[in-house]
Protein backbone atom coordinates (compact mmCIF):
# COMPACT_ATOMS: atom_id res chain seq x y z
CA UNK A 1 0.00 0.00 0.00
CA UNK A 2 1.13 3.52 -0.66
CA UNK A 3 3.14 5.28 1.97
CA UNK A 4 3.13 8.62 0.17
CA UNK A 5 2.35 11.56 2.38
CA UNK A 6 -1.32 12.38 2.38
CA UNK A 7 -1.00 15.91 3.61
CA UNK A 8 1.94 18.03 4.68
CA UNK A 9 2.72 21.55 5.72
CA UNK A 10 5.46 23.55 7.33
CA UNK A 11 5.17 23.88 11.04
CA UNK A 12 7.35 24.52 14.01
CA UNK A 13 6.67 23.02 17.41
CA UNK A 14 5.71 24.48 20.70
CA UNK A 15 6.21 22.81 24.05
CA UNK A 16 4.08 23.05 27.14
CA UNK A 17 5.93 24.10 30.25
CA UNK A 18 5.55 21.38 32.86
CA UNK A 19 2.75 21.82 35.35
CA UNK A 20 1.53 24.92 33.55
CA UNK A 21 -0.67 25.66 30.62
CA UNK A 22 2.04 27.85 29.15
CA UNK A 23 3.34 26.91 25.71
CA UNK A 24 6.75 28.05 24.41
CA UNK A 25 7.38 28.00 20.66
CA UNK A 26 10.49 26.23 19.46
CA UNK A 27 12.40 27.94 16.61
CA UNK A 28 13.40 24.70 14.86
CA UNK A 29 12.15 24.62 11.30
CA UNK A 30 9.94 21.65 10.66
CA UNK A 31 7.04 20.14 8.84
CA UNK A 32 4.01 18.11 9.76
CA UNK A 33 3.36 15.14 7.52
CA UNK A 34 0.35 12.89 7.65
CA UNK A 35 1.00 9.66 5.88
CA UNK A 36 0.12 6.03 5.87
CA UNK A 37 2.86 3.88 7.34
CA UNK A 38 3.91 0.40 6.33
CA UNK A 39 1.58 -0.79 9.07
CA UNK A 40 -1.42 0.64 7.23
CA UNK A 41 -2.04 3.13 10.00
CA UNK A 42 -2.16 6.90 9.70
CA UNK A 43 0.99 8.52 11.07
CA UNK A 44 1.41 12.08 12.23
CA UNK A 45 5.06 12.88 11.72
CA UNK A 46 6.97 15.99 12.63
CA UNK A 47 10.12 16.34 10.57
CA UNK A 48 13.04 18.58 11.43
CA UNK A 49 13.77 20.42 8.17
CA UNK A 50 17.32 21.23 9.14
CA UNK A 51 18.44 17.71 9.91
CA UNK A 52 15.77 15.98 7.81
CA UNK A 53 15.07 13.66 10.74
CA UNK A 54 11.58 12.57 11.63
CA UNK A 55 11.60 13.50 15.27
CA UNK A 56 8.05 12.61 16.15
CA UNK A 57 5.95 9.78 14.85
CA UNK A 58 2.50 9.33 16.29
CA UNK A 59 -0.13 6.90 15.20
CA UNK A 60 -3.57 8.38 14.76
CA UNK A 61 -6.70 6.32 15.07
CA UNK A 62 -9.84 7.81 13.59
CA UNK A 63 -11.91 9.62 16.22
CA UNK A 64 -9.02 9.43 18.60
CA UNK A 65 -7.29 12.64 17.56
CA UNK A 66 -8.32 16.17 16.75
CA UNK A 67 -6.30 19.13 15.53
CA UNK A 68 -7.56 22.37 16.94
CA UNK A 69 -6.44 25.98 17.27
CA UNK A 70 -5.23 27.22 20.62
CA UNK A 71 -7.24 30.37 20.79
CA UNK A 72 -5.09 32.06 23.45
CA UNK A 73 -1.99 32.03 21.25
CA UNK A 74 -1.24 35.62 20.31
CA UNK A 75 -0.27 34.84 16.75
CA UNK A 76 -3.51 32.92 16.26
CA UNK A 77 -1.58 30.19 14.55
CA UNK A 78 -0.89 27.61 17.25
CA UNK A 79 -2.65 24.33 16.97
CA UNK A 80 -2.79 21.38 19.26
CA UNK A 81 -3.11 17.73 18.33
CA UNK A 82 -5.20 16.14 21.01
CA UNK A 83 -5.79 12.47 21.61
CA UNK A 84 -9.07 11.55 23.22
CA UNK A 85 -7.60 8.33 24.54
CA UNK A 86 -4.55 9.67 26.33
CA UNK A 87 -3.05 12.59 28.10
CA UNK A 88 -0.72 13.47 25.28
CA UNK A 89 -1.01 16.74 23.51
CA UNK A 90 1.25 17.97 20.79
CA UNK A 91 1.53 21.59 19.90
CA UNK A 92 2.32 22.95 16.49
CA UNK A 93 2.88 26.48 15.41
CA UNK A 94 1.32 26.39 12.02
CA UNK A 95 2.44 28.50 9.17
CA UNK A 96 -0.65 28.23 7.10
CA UNK A 97 -3.17 30.97 7.50
CA UNK A 98 -6.07 28.97 6.24
CA UNK A 99 -8.57 27.95 8.89
CA UNK A 100 -10.27 25.55 6.55
CA UNK A 101 -7.04 23.64 6.46
CA UNK A 102 -7.48 22.64 10.06
CA UNK A 103 -10.95 21.39 9.36
CA UNK A 104 -9.63 19.25 6.61
CA UNK A 105 -6.85 17.80 8.71
CA UNK A 106 -9.55 16.88 11.16
CA UNK A 107 -11.60 15.28 8.45
CA UNK A 108 -8.60 13.30 7.37
CA UNK A 109 -8.16 12.16 10.94
CA UNK A 110 -11.81 11.18 11.16
CA UNK A 111 -11.73 9.09 8.04
CA UNK A 112 -8.42 8.69 6.28
CA UNK A 113 -9.18 7.90 2.63
CA UNK A 114 -7.92 8.71 -0.82
CA UNK A 115 -4.50 10.08 -1.59
CA UNK A 116 -4.91 13.72 -2.58
CA UNK A 117 -3.68 14.33 -6.11
CA UNK A 118 -1.47 17.32 -5.45
CA UNK A 119 1.05 15.56 -3.26
CA UNK A 120 2.81 13.69 -6.02
CA UNK A 121 6.52 14.31 -5.72
CA UNK A 122 6.11 16.03 -2.41
CA UNK A 123 8.99 14.37 -0.51
CA UNK A 124 11.52 15.87 -2.92
CA UNK A 125 9.99 19.29 -2.52
CA UNK A 126 10.36 19.07 1.23
CA UNK A 127 14.06 18.56 0.85
CA UNK A 128 14.56 21.74 -1.09
CA UNK A 129 13.60 23.81 1.94
CA UNK A 130 11.84 26.25 -0.27
CA UNK A 131 9.27 26.87 2.38
CA UNK A 132 7.97 29.95 3.94
CA UNK A 133 9.30 30.41 7.45
CA UNK A 134 6.83 30.56 10.26
CA UNK A 135 5.89 34.13 10.89
CA UNK A 136 7.46 35.55 7.76
CA UNK A 137 5.75 36.25 4.52
CA UNK A 138 7.48 35.98 1.19
CA UNK A 139 6.27 37.71 -1.84
CA UNK A 140 5.85 35.22 -4.60
CA UNK A 141 8.00 36.43 -7.42
CA UNK A 142 7.26 33.91 -10.10
CA UNK A 143 4.05 33.19 -11.81
CA UNK A 144 4.55 29.48 -11.29
CA UNK A 145 3.54 29.95 -7.70
CA UNK A 146 0.01 30.65 -8.84
CA UNK A 147 -2.25 27.87 -7.74
CA UNK A 148 -3.62 25.64 -10.46
CA UNK A 149 -7.32 25.91 -11.02
CA UNK A 150 -7.75 22.30 -12.12
CA UNK A 151 -7.59 19.99 -9.11
CA UNK A 152 -6.12 17.21 -11.21
CA UNK A 153 -2.95 19.21 -11.88
CA UNK A 154 -0.26 18.68 -9.28
CA UNK A 155 0.42 21.83 -7.30
CA UNK A 156 3.92 23.06 -6.68
CA UNK A 157 4.56 22.50 -3.02
CA UNK A 158 8.18 23.48 -3.29
CA UNK A 159 7.41 26.95 -4.55
CA UNK A 160 7.68 29.91 -2.25
CA UNK A 161 4.37 31.12 -1.00
CA UNK A 162 2.75 27.73 -1.24
CA UNK A 163 -0.64 27.61 0.32
CA UNK A 164 -3.67 25.45 -0.12
CA UNK A 165 -6.37 27.21 -2.04
CA UNK A 166 -9.98 26.94 -1.15
CA UNK A 167 -10.44 25.04 -4.40
CA UNK A 168 -7.90 22.41 -3.39
CA UNK A 169 -9.35 22.05 0.04
CA UNK A 170 -12.84 21.60 -1.33
CA UNK A 171 -11.55 18.99 -3.71
CA UNK A 172 -9.77 17.24 -0.89
CA UNK A 173 -12.87 17.32 1.24
CA UNK A 174 -15.09 15.85 -1.44
CA UNK A 175 -12.59 13.10 -2.08
CA UNK A 176 -12.77 12.13 1.53
CA UNK A 177 -16.53 12.27 1.61
CA UNK A 178 -16.92 10.21 -1.53
CA UNK A 179 -15.17 7.42 0.43
CA UNK A 180 -13.39 4.75 -1.52
CA UNK A 181 -12.49 1.24 -0.38
CA UNK A 182 -10.69 1.82 2.88
CA UNK A 183 -7.16 0.53 3.17
CA UNK A 184 -6.14 -1.29 6.33
CA UNK A 185 -7.41 1.53 8.47
CA UNK A 186 -8.43 0.58 11.99
CA UNK A 187 -12.19 1.14 12.29
CA UNK A 188 -13.61 3.19 15.09
CA UNK A 189 -14.03 0.80 17.98
CA UNK A 190 -17.79 0.53 18.13
CA UNK A 191 -18.27 -2.69 19.99
CA UNK A 192 -16.41 -5.55 21.55
CA UNK A 193 -17.12 -9.25 21.13
CA UNK A 194 -16.78 -9.64 24.89
CA UNK A 195 -20.03 -7.68 25.23
CA UNK A 196 -21.78 -9.83 22.64
CA UNK A 197 -20.79 -13.28 23.90
CA UNK A 198 -21.95 -12.78 27.46
CA UNK A 199 -23.62 -15.49 29.56
CA UNK A 200 -26.60 -13.13 29.81
CA UNK A 201 -26.99 -13.08 26.02
CA UNK A 202 -26.40 -16.80 25.58
CA UNK A 203 -28.35 -18.36 28.44
CA UNK A 204 -31.82 -17.64 26.97
CA UNK A 205 -30.92 -19.72 23.91
CA UNK A 206 -30.75 -22.85 26.03
CA UNK A 207 -34.49 -22.72 26.61
CA UNK A 208 -35.61 -20.97 23.45
CA UNK A 209 -33.48 -22.85 20.91
CA UNK A 210 -32.16 -26.11 22.36
CA UNK A 211 -31.59 -27.47 18.85
CA UNK A 212 -29.10 -24.66 18.21
CA UNK A 213 -27.28 -25.54 21.44
CA UNK A 214 -26.66 -28.98 19.94
CA UNK A 215 -24.63 -27.36 17.17
CA UNK A 216 -22.13 -26.16 19.77
CA UNK A 217 -21.01 -29.56 21.07
CA UNK A 218 -18.56 -30.41 18.28
CA UNK A 219 -16.66 -27.20 19.10
CA UNK A 220 -16.03 -27.91 22.77
CA UNK A 221 -12.61 -29.07 24.00
CA UNK A 222 -12.16 -32.68 22.87
CA UNK A 223 -10.47 -33.86 26.08
CA UNK A 224 -13.02 -32.99 28.76
CA UNK A 225 -12.92 -35.35 31.74
CA UNK A 226 -16.56 -36.32 31.28
CA UNK A 227 -19.01 -36.21 28.36
CA UNK A 228 -20.38 -32.70 27.86
CA UNK A 229 -23.92 -31.65 28.60
CA UNK A 230 -25.72 -28.33 28.05
CA UNK A 231 -24.53 -27.42 31.53
CA UNK A 232 -20.95 -27.95 30.38
CA UNK A 233 -21.52 -25.36 27.69
CA UNK A 234 -22.79 -22.92 30.32
CA UNK A 235 -19.67 -23.56 32.40
CA UNK A 236 -17.38 -23.01 29.44
CA UNK A 237 -19.08 -19.76 28.46
CA UNK A 238 -18.64 -18.40 32.01
CA UNK A 239 -15.06 -19.64 32.36
CA UNK A 240 -12.09 -17.24 32.55
CA UNK A 241 -10.37 -19.24 29.80
CA UNK A 242 -13.20 -18.68 27.35
CA UNK A 243 -13.54 -15.01 28.22
CA UNK A 244 -9.80 -14.52 27.69
CA UNK A 245 -10.09 -16.24 24.31
CA UNK A 246 -12.91 -13.89 23.28
CA UNK A 247 -10.85 -10.85 24.32
CA UNK A 248 -7.92 -12.19 22.34
CA UNK A 249 -10.02 -12.87 19.27
CA UNK A 250 -11.67 -9.45 19.51
CA UNK A 251 -8.29 -7.77 19.58
CA UNK A 252 -7.06 -9.92 16.69
CA UNK A 253 -10.14 -9.03 14.59
CA UNK A 254 -9.45 -5.34 15.14
CA UNK A 255 -6.12 -5.68 13.42
CA UNK A 256 -8.14 -6.39 10.29
CA UNK A 257 -5.72 -9.17 9.39
CA UNK A 258 -7.83 -12.29 9.93
CA UNK A 259 -8.97 -12.69 6.33
CA UNK A 260 -7.14 -15.98 5.92
CA UNK A 261 -8.28 -17.39 9.23
CA UNK A 262 -11.99 -16.67 8.74
CA UNK A 263 -12.00 -18.38 5.37
CA UNK A 264 -11.34 -21.56 7.32
CA UNK A 265 -14.71 -20.95 8.95
CA UNK A 266 -16.42 -20.76 5.58
CA UNK A 267 -16.68 -17.00 5.75
CA UNK A 268 -15.57 -14.50 3.08
CA UNK A 269 -12.19 -12.85 3.53
CA UNK A 270 -13.87 -9.53 4.25
CA UNK A 271 -15.19 -11.01 7.50
CA UNK A 272 -11.67 -10.94 8.90
CA UNK A 273 -11.27 -7.19 8.61
CA UNK A 274 -12.98 -6.20 11.82
CA UNK A 275 -15.50 -7.04 14.49
CA UNK A 276 -18.41 -5.42 12.68
CA UNK A 277 -17.51 -7.13 9.43
CA UNK A 278 -17.22 -10.47 11.20
CA UNK A 279 -20.65 -10.16 12.77
CA UNK A 280 -22.22 -9.00 9.50
CA UNK A 281 -20.80 -11.99 7.67
CA UNK A 282 -22.11 -14.36 10.30
CA UNK A 283 -25.56 -12.76 10.11
CA UNK A 284 -25.51 -13.29 6.34
CA UNK A 285 -24.33 -16.84 6.70
CA UNK A 286 -27.03 -17.57 9.28
CA UNK A 287 -29.70 -16.14 7.00
CA UNK A 288 -28.52 -18.35 4.16
CA UNK A 289 -28.76 -21.36 6.43
CA UNK A 290 -25.04 -22.07 6.76
CA UNK A 291 -22.60 -21.71 9.64
CA UNK A 292 -22.39 -23.46 12.99
CA UNK A 293 -21.22 -26.74 11.57
CA UNK A 294 -18.37 -25.27 9.57
CA UNK A 295 -14.84 -26.60 9.24
CA UNK A 296 -12.83 -26.71 12.41
CA UNK A 297 -9.81 -24.49 12.43
CA UNK A 298 -7.63 -26.76 14.51
Amino acid sequence: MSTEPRIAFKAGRAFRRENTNWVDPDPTKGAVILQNGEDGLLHFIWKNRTTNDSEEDLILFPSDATFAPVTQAASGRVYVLKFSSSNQRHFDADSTRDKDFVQNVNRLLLNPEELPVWFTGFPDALGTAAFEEPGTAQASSSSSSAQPAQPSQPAQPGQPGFQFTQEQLNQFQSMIESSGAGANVPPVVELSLTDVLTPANLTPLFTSHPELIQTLFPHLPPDLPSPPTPQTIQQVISSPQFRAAVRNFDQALRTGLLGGLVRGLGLPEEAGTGVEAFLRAIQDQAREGGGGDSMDTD
Partner: protein
Amino acid sequence: MSGEDDSSGWQLTESDPSVFTELLKSLGVPLVVDDLYSLDSGALSTFQPIHALIFLFKWVGSSAEPSSGGQYDLEFPGFFAHQVVNNACATLAVMNAIGNIPDLPKGVQLSDLINFTVGMDPQTRGMVITSADWLREAHNALSPPSAISLEGLGLPKTTEEAYHFIVYLPYMGSVYELDGLKDSPVQHGPYEEKGEGWLAKAREVIEARIATYPPGSLEFSLLALHDDPLPTLQTSLSEAQASGNHAAVEEIMVRLANENSKRERWAFENSLRRHNYVGFIHALLSAMGKAGALDKAKEDAQAKMQERIAKRKEKGEAAMDED
Protein backbone atom coordinates in the same frame (compact mmCIF):
# COMPACT_ATOMS: atom_id res chain seq x y z
CA MET B 1 14.39 -7.35 37.75
CA SER B 2 16.87 -8.98 35.45
CA GLY B 3 15.86 -11.39 32.79
CA GLU B 4 15.35 -10.98 29.07
CA ASP B 5 12.27 -9.43 27.60
CA ASP B 6 12.45 -11.92 24.79
CA SER B 7 10.10 -14.75 25.65
CA SER B 8 12.13 -17.20 23.52
CA GLY B 9 8.99 -19.13 22.69
CA TRP B 10 7.91 -19.62 26.32
CA GLN B 11 4.30 -18.63 26.86
CA LEU B 12 3.09 -17.01 30.05
CA THR B 13 1.15 -19.53 32.14
CA GLU B 14 -1.34 -19.17 34.94
CA SER B 15 -0.02 -19.82 38.43
CA ASP B 16 -2.76 -22.23 39.36
CA PRO B 17 -2.15 -25.43 41.34
CA SER B 18 -3.88 -27.32 38.54
CA VAL B 19 -1.36 -25.97 36.04
CA PHE B 20 1.61 -26.93 38.22
CA THR B 21 0.23 -30.39 38.90
CA GLU B 22 -0.33 -30.99 35.21
CA LEU B 23 3.25 -29.93 34.49
CA LEU B 24 4.57 -32.33 37.12
CA LYS B 25 2.51 -35.12 35.59
CA SER B 26 3.98 -34.45 32.17
CA LEU B 27 7.45 -34.56 33.75
CA GLY B 28 6.70 -37.98 35.19
CA VAL B 29 6.90 -36.72 38.77
CA PRO B 30 4.33 -38.16 41.24
CA LEU B 31 3.91 -34.93 43.16
CA VAL B 32 0.95 -32.62 43.41
CA VAL B 33 0.66 -28.88 44.12
CA ASP B 34 -2.07 -27.40 46.27
CA ASP B 35 -2.99 -23.95 47.51
CA LEU B 36 -2.15 -23.28 51.14
CA TYR B 37 -4.50 -20.86 52.81
CA SER B 38 -2.47 -20.53 55.95
CA LEU B 39 0.83 -21.61 57.44
CA ASP B 40 -0.64 -22.95 60.66
CA SER B 41 0.07 -26.52 61.62
CA GLY B 42 -3.45 -27.70 60.75
CA ALA B 43 -3.22 -26.44 57.19
CA LEU B 44 0.27 -27.84 56.71
CA SER B 45 -0.57 -31.27 58.13
CA THR B 46 -3.25 -31.76 55.45
CA PHE B 47 -0.56 -32.21 52.87
CA GLN B 48 2.24 -33.94 54.77
CA PRO B 49 4.87 -34.74 53.74
CA ILE B 50 5.53 -31.40 52.06
CA HIS B 51 8.68 -31.36 49.96
CA ALA B 52 8.80 -27.65 49.15
CA LEU B 53 6.84 -24.45 49.54
CA ILE B 54 6.41 -22.12 46.59
CA PHE B 55 5.80 -18.52 47.48
CA LEU B 56 4.53 -16.49 44.52
CA PHE B 57 3.88 -12.82 44.66
CA LYS B 58 3.37 -9.56 42.83
CA TRP B 59 4.79 -6.62 44.60
CA VAL B 60 3.29 -3.24 43.81
CA GLY B 61 5.43 -1.05 45.99
CA SER B 62 7.46 1.85 44.74
CA SER B 63 10.54 1.78 46.93
CA ALA B 64 13.27 -0.86 46.85
CA GLU B 65 12.12 -4.36 47.68
CA PRO B 66 12.84 -5.25 51.32
CA SER B 67 15.66 -7.69 51.99
CA SER B 68 14.70 -11.22 52.92
CA GLY B 69 17.32 -12.01 55.55
CA GLY B 70 19.46 -15.14 55.56
CA GLN B 71 22.87 -15.60 53.97
CA TYR B 72 23.92 -16.20 50.42
CA ASP B 73 25.37 -19.66 49.93
CA LEU B 74 27.69 -19.47 46.97
CA GLU B 75 28.84 -23.02 47.54
CA PHE B 76 25.36 -24.54 47.37
CA PRO B 77 25.97 -28.05 46.00
CA GLY B 78 22.39 -28.75 44.97
CA PHE B 79 20.35 -27.77 41.93
CA PHE B 80 19.90 -24.04 41.37
CA ALA B 81 19.15 -22.29 38.09
CA HIS B 82 18.85 -18.61 37.26
CA GLN B 83 15.69 -17.35 35.63
CA VAL B 84 16.79 -16.25 32.16
CA VAL B 85 13.38 -16.01 30.50
CA ASN B 86 10.60 -14.25 32.40
CA ASN B 87 7.76 -16.32 30.98
CA ALA B 88 9.45 -19.52 32.10
CA CYS B 89 9.42 -18.48 35.76
CA ALA B 90 6.81 -21.01 36.92
CA THR B 91 8.58 -23.97 35.35
CA LEU B 92 11.93 -22.73 36.56
CA ALA B 93 10.63 -22.63 40.13
CA VAL B 94 9.35 -26.20 39.77
CA MET B 95 12.75 -27.29 38.46
CA ASN B 96 14.57 -25.63 41.36
CA ALA B 97 12.28 -27.50 43.73
CA ILE B 98 12.30 -30.99 42.22
CA GLY B 99 16.01 -30.80 41.42
CA ASN B 100 16.68 -30.92 45.16
CA ILE B 101 14.24 -33.59 46.36
CA PRO B 102 16.16 -36.81 47.02
CA ASP B 103 14.97 -40.11 45.55
CA LEU B 104 12.26 -38.48 43.50
CA PRO B 105 10.91 -40.58 40.61
CA LYS B 106 11.24 -38.67 37.36
CA GLY B 107 10.70 -39.20 33.66
CA VAL B 108 13.77 -40.01 31.58
CA GLN B 109 14.05 -36.64 29.84
CA LEU B 110 13.90 -34.82 33.16
CA SER B 111 16.53 -37.07 34.76
CA ASP B 112 18.83 -36.59 31.80
CA LEU B 113 18.40 -32.85 31.84
CA ILE B 114 19.14 -32.56 35.56
CA ASN B 115 22.16 -34.86 35.30
CA PHE B 116 23.45 -32.93 32.33
CA THR B 117 23.58 -29.74 34.40
CA VAL B 118 25.62 -31.17 37.29
CA GLY B 119 28.56 -28.90 38.03
CA MET B 120 27.25 -25.99 35.97
CA ASP B 121 26.97 -22.48 37.38
CA PRO B 122 23.41 -21.18 37.92
CA GLN B 123 23.40 -18.94 34.86
CA THR B 124 24.49 -21.71 32.50
CA ARG B 125 22.09 -24.14 34.10
CA GLY B 126 19.29 -21.63 33.62
CA MET B 127 20.13 -21.26 29.94
CA VAL B 128 20.34 -25.01 29.42
CA ILE B 129 16.95 -25.56 31.06
CA THR B 130 15.38 -22.80 29.02
CA SER B 131 16.74 -24.26 25.80
CA ALA B 132 15.24 -27.68 26.39
CA ASP B 133 12.61 -27.83 23.64
CA TRP B 134 10.66 -30.68 25.18
CA LEU B 135 10.42 -28.79 28.49
CA ARG B 136 9.27 -25.63 26.77
CA GLU B 137 6.62 -27.63 24.92
CA ALA B 138 5.41 -29.21 28.15
CA HIS B 139 5.24 -25.74 29.68
CA ASN B 140 3.43 -24.19 26.70
CA ALA B 141 0.92 -27.03 26.65
CA LEU B 142 -0.56 -25.47 29.79
CA SER B 143 -1.72 -22.25 28.22
CA PRO B 144 -4.00 -21.33 25.33
CA PRO B 145 -2.72 -22.32 21.91
CA SER B 146 -1.31 -19.45 19.90
CA ALA B 147 -3.44 -20.14 16.85
CA ILE B 148 -3.73 -16.42 16.58
CA SER B 149 -0.35 -15.02 17.43
CA LEU B 150 -0.60 -11.43 18.45
CA GLU B 151 3.17 -11.16 18.74
CA GLY B 152 4.79 -8.88 16.25
CA LEU B 153 1.63 -7.01 15.32
CA GLY B 154 2.71 -4.03 17.36
CA LEU B 155 -0.45 -4.04 19.43
CA PRO B 156 -0.33 -2.23 22.72
CA LYS B 157 0.49 -4.79 25.38
CA THR B 158 -1.57 -5.04 28.52
CA THR B 159 0.97 -4.88 31.29
CA GLU B 160 0.38 -8.29 32.76
CA GLU B 161 3.48 -8.98 34.73
CA ALA B 162 4.55 -12.43 35.69
CA TYR B 163 4.46 -13.35 39.32
CA HIS B 164 7.78 -13.69 41.09
CA PHE B 165 8.38 -17.25 42.35
CA ILE B 166 10.45 -18.30 45.34
CA VAL B 167 11.02 -21.88 46.47
CA TYR B 168 11.63 -22.78 50.11
CA LEU B 169 12.88 -26.26 50.90
CA PRO B 170 15.05 -28.27 53.28
CA TYR B 171 18.55 -29.14 52.13
CA MET B 172 21.22 -30.81 54.23
CA GLY B 173 19.71 -29.74 57.52
CA SER B 174 18.94 -26.10 56.68
CA VAL B 175 16.05 -24.22 55.17
CA TYR B 176 16.99 -22.72 51.82
CA GLU B 177 15.39 -20.04 49.71
CA LEU B 178 15.82 -20.54 45.94
CA ASP B 179 15.10 -17.36 43.98
CA GLY B 180 15.97 -17.57 40.28
CA LEU B 181 16.53 -13.83 40.19
CA LYS B 182 19.16 -13.88 42.93
CA ASP B 183 22.78 -14.82 42.36
CA SER B 184 22.73 -17.83 44.65
CA PRO B 185 20.48 -19.68 47.05
CA VAL B 186 19.92 -18.08 50.46
CA GLN B 187 20.45 -20.17 53.59
CA HIS B 188 18.10 -19.35 56.46
CA GLY B 189 19.57 -21.57 59.13
CA PRO B 190 19.19 -25.12 60.48
CA TYR B 191 15.95 -26.75 61.58
CA GLU B 192 15.05 -29.47 64.02
CA GLU B 193 13.85 -32.82 62.74
CA LYS B 194 11.21 -33.27 65.42
CA GLY B 195 7.61 -32.08 65.20
CA GLU B 196 6.91 -30.13 62.08
CA GLY B 197 10.52 -30.34 61.04
CA TRP B 198 11.70 -27.88 58.43
CA LEU B 199 8.24 -26.41 58.06
CA ALA B 200 8.45 -24.69 61.45
CA LYS B 201 11.57 -22.85 60.34
CA ALA B 202 10.15 -22.11 56.90
CA ARG B 203 7.03 -20.64 58.48
CA GLU B 204 9.19 -18.25 60.51
CA VAL B 205 11.12 -17.14 57.45
CA ILE B 206 8.09 -16.66 55.22
CA GLU B 207 6.04 -14.82 57.83
CA ALA B 208 8.98 -12.54 58.51
CA ARG B 209 9.27 -11.83 54.81
CA ILE B 210 5.58 -11.04 54.40
CA ALA B 211 5.79 -8.68 57.38
CA THR B 212 8.49 -6.56 55.78
CA TYR B 213 6.21 -5.41 52.96
CA PRO B 214 4.01 -2.37 53.62
CA PRO B 215 0.44 -3.51 54.22
CA GLY B 216 -1.60 -3.84 51.05
CA SER B 217 1.40 -3.76 48.76
CA LEU B 218 1.80 -7.49 48.38
CA GLU B 219 -0.35 -9.87 46.38
CA PHE B 220 0.73 -13.43 47.08
CA SER B 221 -0.07 -17.12 47.15
CA LEU B 222 1.57 -20.02 48.88
CA LEU B 223 1.69 -23.45 47.30
CA ALA B 224 2.64 -26.78 48.82
CA LEU B 225 4.52 -29.32 46.74
CA HIS B 226 3.70 -32.73 48.20
CA ASP B 227 3.17 -36.42 47.43
CA ASP B 228 0.12 -37.37 45.40
CA PRO B 229 -2.34 -38.57 48.04
CA LEU B 230 -4.35 -40.83 45.75
CA PRO B 231 -2.12 -43.94 45.77
CA THR B 232 -1.79 -43.82 49.56
CA LEU B 233 -5.50 -43.35 50.01
CA GLN B 234 -6.20 -46.30 47.73
CA THR B 235 -3.87 -48.50 49.71
CA SER B 236 -5.34 -47.39 53.03
CA LEU B 237 -8.81 -48.04 51.69
CA SER B 238 -7.98 -51.59 50.67
CA GLU B 239 -6.41 -52.22 54.05
CA ALA B 240 -9.35 -50.78 55.95
CA GLN B 241 -11.76 -52.80 53.86
CA ALA B 242 -9.72 -55.93 54.37
CA SER B 243 -9.69 -55.43 58.13
CA GLY B 244 -13.39 -54.56 58.22
CA ASN B 245 -12.79 -51.15 59.80
CA HIS B 246 -16.00 -49.49 58.63
CA ALA B 247 -15.36 -46.14 60.27
CA ALA B 248 -11.99 -45.88 58.60
CA VAL B 249 -13.42 -47.03 55.27
CA GLU B 250 -16.04 -44.30 55.38
CA GLU B 251 -13.56 -41.62 56.31
CA ILE B 252 -11.15 -42.63 53.59
CA MET B 253 -13.90 -42.78 51.00
CA VAL B 254 -14.91 -39.22 51.82
CA ARG B 255 -11.33 -38.05 51.41
CA LEU B 256 -11.00 -39.98 48.16
CA ALA B 257 -14.20 -38.46 46.83
CA ASN B 258 -12.99 -34.95 47.69
CA GLU B 259 -9.61 -35.51 46.11
CA ASN B 260 -11.11 -37.04 42.97
CA SER B 261 -13.62 -34.27 42.47
CA LYS B 262 -10.85 -31.70 42.86
CA ARG B 263 -8.76 -33.54 40.26
CA GLU B 264 -11.70 -33.68 37.89
CA ARG B 265 -12.21 -29.93 38.28
CA TRP B 266 -8.52 -29.43 37.53
CA ALA B 267 -8.72 -31.67 34.46
CA PHE B 268 -11.72 -29.66 33.24
CA GLU B 269 -9.87 -26.34 33.71
CA ASN B 270 -6.75 -27.63 31.98
CA SER B 271 -8.71 -28.90 29.03
CA LEU B 272 -10.31 -25.46 28.76
CA ARG B 273 -6.87 -23.87 28.91
CA ARG B 274 -5.55 -25.87 25.99
CA HIS B 275 -8.48 -25.32 23.66
CA ASN B 276 -8.64 -23.15 20.56
CA TYR B 277 -11.99 -21.35 20.77
CA VAL B 278 -12.24 -19.86 17.30
CA GLY B 279 -14.64 -22.55 16.07
CA PHE B 280 -16.70 -22.32 19.24
CA ILE B 281 -16.93 -18.52 19.00
CA HIS B 282 -18.09 -18.81 15.40
CA ALA B 283 -20.64 -21.47 16.31
CA LEU B 284 -21.99 -19.38 19.20
CA LEU B 285 -22.40 -16.30 17.06
CA SER B 286 -24.05 -18.35 14.31
CA ALA B 287 -26.47 -19.82 16.81
CA MET B 288 -27.30 -16.32 18.01
CA GLY B 289 -27.76 -15.25 14.41
CA LYS B 290 -30.13 -18.08 13.64
CA ALA B 291 -32.05 -17.45 16.84
CA GLY B 292 -32.44 -13.81 15.77
CA ALA B 293 -30.60 -12.68 18.89
CA LEU B 294 -27.55 -11.17 17.25
CA ASP B 295 -28.92 -7.74 16.33
CA LYS B 296 -30.06 -6.95 19.85
CA ALA B 297 -26.75 -8.23 21.27
CA LYS B 298 -24.87 -5.95 18.84
CA GLU B 299 -26.93 -2.92 19.83
CA ASP B 300 -26.43 -3.59 23.50
CA ALA B 301 -22.72 -4.06 22.95
CA GLN B 302 -22.51 -0.77 21.06
CA ALA B 303 -24.30 1.02 23.89
CA LYS B 304 -21.92 -0.49 26.44
CA MET B 305 -18.94 0.63 24.40
CA GLN B 306 -20.29 4.19 24.15
CA GLU B 307 -20.72 4.23 27.91
CA ARG B 308 -17.19 3.04 28.42
CA ILE B 309 -15.74 5.61 26.05
CA ALA B 310 -17.71 8.38 27.74
CA LYS B 311 -16.48 7.28 31.15
CA ARG B 312 -12.94 7.06 29.88
CA LYS B 313 -13.13 10.54 28.38
CA GLU B 314 -14.26 11.86 31.73
CA LYS B 315 -11.24 10.56 33.55
CA GLY B 316 -9.26 10.31 30.34
CA GLU B 317 -7.50 13.60 30.87
CA ALA B 318 -5.78 12.13 33.89
CA ALA B 319 -4.98 8.66 32.70
CA MET B 320 -2.95 7.18 29.90
CA ASP B 321 -5.05 4.57 28.24
CA GLU B 322 -4.01 1.53 26.27
CA ASP B 323 -6.77 0.45 23.96
